């Protein structure tokens, strides 16, 4: 069978991937540059018997998808900057109550209303620490529509595997750019379905007692097991508790289930790292420019490499340390005042050899911007 090929915006690729992954409930509130996701899903979801609802704000949107996830559905919401800020309390709830869901943030310039129609990667730390309290989080990104498709499907898979919200941190550049997308066939990318408990009716079901492998089977609301779900610290029945051993056990579980699996969650791509003197680390649309520079400078004999991160959180410290072990300089290319660069400094053995190549004026970072930073490192001046 001939593959279906489309020429689409990144936001549309995200929609295609979400449907491929089994999305059947979406709640959202319009905001540039993510609005197309809501518009397209309002059309696509009812065609397959799924549900779309435009809520009164982003707070309500994230709450509604959490409710729908509990009845056994794969759910998603999509937003940008200001809306992502409004979702932070709900995000923390989904972390605490361990509800699988996917939250797309097509980043725009911030803070505040900022630059609605321009790209930025300024929300990387917000994704990590935006909601209050200690916690772990999964956040992923991509630099091309084909990767965006793959990563979106994997976001749904990870949400189910770890019973957690997963953030997709795209940016305006990727969201609105048009590019070729080859739709994978059914079965080509494996899907992780909801793990439901095998405990029979009438037998005490512990919704918050992890199995030996750390996973927590769920029971759909409306089914035979009735249990409590809360954002408070809770025991194995989901009932509120402030007993120190229970509190300690739960926070450890919430953090460990993600951080102990960094290697399973890490997604990345690498280009020419084997012999690279200097290495770029980049992600999202900025990685496109970084890759350009690698390719063009290699033609001139300069040994550059690129490590493109697709999983930003949990940050793959070991991976970055290993890959950068032989590099003279590490250049972190990102469109913010320096966020992932700080994590890279924490990861590598020689943090003073880590340099930021950035752009924060709403204009997409160019090859020239990156080359200028390279020249400065090499003492050539710009």
């Amino acid at each position, binding site marked *: 069978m001939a593959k279906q090929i489309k020429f689409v915006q990144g936001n549309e690729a995200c929609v295609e991937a979400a449907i491929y992954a089994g999305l059947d409930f979406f709640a959202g509130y319009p905001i540039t540059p993510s609005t197309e996701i809501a518009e397209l899903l309002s059309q696509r979801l009812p065609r397959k018997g799924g549900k779309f609802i435009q809520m009164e704000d982003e707070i*309500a949107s994230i*709450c509604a998808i959490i409710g729908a996830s*509990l009845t056994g559905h794969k759910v998603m919401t999509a937003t940008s900057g200001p809306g992502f800020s409004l979702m932070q309390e709900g995000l923390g709830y989904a972390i605490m109550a361990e509800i699988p869901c996917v939250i797309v943030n097509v980043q725009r310039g911030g803070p505040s209303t900022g630059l609605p129609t321009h790209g930025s990667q300024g929300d990387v730390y917000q994704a990590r620490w935006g909601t209050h309290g200690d916690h772990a989080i999964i956040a992923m990104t991509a630099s091309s529509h084909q990767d965006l498709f793959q990563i979106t499907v994997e976001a749904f898979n990870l949400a189910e595997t770890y019973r957690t919200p997963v953030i997709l941190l795209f940016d305006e550049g990727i969201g609105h750019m048009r590019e070729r997308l080859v739709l994978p066939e059914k079965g080509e990318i494996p899907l992780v379905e909801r793990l439901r408990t095998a405990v029979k009716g009438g037998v005490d079901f512990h919704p918050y007692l992890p199995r030996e492998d750390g996973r927590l089977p769920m029971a759909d609301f409306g089914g035979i097991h009735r249990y409590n779900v809360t*954002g*408070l610290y809770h025991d194995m029945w989901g009932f509120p508790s402030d007993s120190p051993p229970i509190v300690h056990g739960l926070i450890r579980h919430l953090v460990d289930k993600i951080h102990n699996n960094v290697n399973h969650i890490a997604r990345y791509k690498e280009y020419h790292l084997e012999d690279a003197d200097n290495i770029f680390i980049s992600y999202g649309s900025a990685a496109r420019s970084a890759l350009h520079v690698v390719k063009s400078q290699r033609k001139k004999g300069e040994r550059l490499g690129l490590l493109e991160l697709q999983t930003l959180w949990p940050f793959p410290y070991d991976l970055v340390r290993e890959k950068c072990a032989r590099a003279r300089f590490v250049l972190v290319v990102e469109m913010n005042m320096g966020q992932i660069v700080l994590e890279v400094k924490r990861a590598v053995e020689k943090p003073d050899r880590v340099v930021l190549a950035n752009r924060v004026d709403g204009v997409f970072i160019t090859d020239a911007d990156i080359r200028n930073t390279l020249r400065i490192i090499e003492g050539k001046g710009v």
Partner: protein
Amino acid sequence: MAVKDYIRERFFPHMWCPGCGHGIVLNSMLRAIDALGLSKNEIVMVSGIGCSSRISGYVDFHSLHTLHGRALAFATGVKLSRPELNVIVPMGDGDALAIGGNHFIHAARRNIDLTAVVMNNRIYGMTGGQYSPLSGQGILATTAPYSNIDSDFDVVDLASAAGATFVARTTTYHARQITDLLKAAILHEGFSVVEVMSQCPTYFGRKNRLGSAVDMVERFKKITTPIGSKAKREHPELIERGIFVQKETTEYCSAYDDVIEKAMKGN
């Protein structure tokens, strides 16, 4: 079944103060559910944060204890994704109408089939006695030491204006009426609001010198009257009890079924 068959005895004693009105609401609600013969598996109780919202932990239904003010938003997701479930949403007055006010009017406007119960004690109990949007002028609260200057909402007027298709009010003195109204509200297909005037003797009562919990409950008898009664004509300041709105219009989830049908035809 007996009322105790609907509760999670493992989680008792409950956290409410002696004399708190929230227990009366719980008891009357379970009687309504029992009288309707609903199966526990088909009921989801969604609540926010507050003393009132702790009610969801004590009942043996699917229970979702959420965020302050957001219960109706979570409940909308539960209901729309699984319309056959009965979704009951108990909320405090601050929960429902301060932080949750926007969700309240929009759930009413959509006419989605949720049963919203506003447990109105006119104060923020859980945080220790601050004024709420239902306290009204002249009330003393920990954040209104010189007496409150904020006007209050009328829950019935607000819900009706926003489009709720079932709107009723009663008090904790009238426990049997709570049961009757909740029965009708749960059966109603559309967004229903039942306001239950309730007592917080610990904060509202003490601050405003309203006496014991029993005094407060008896006061509800004195200051309320059935809708359209002779007493109301003679004493217009009395607060009316009963069903104010009960009408049939298209419910949201069934309207969405039509959307699905249209979308599938166009495929």
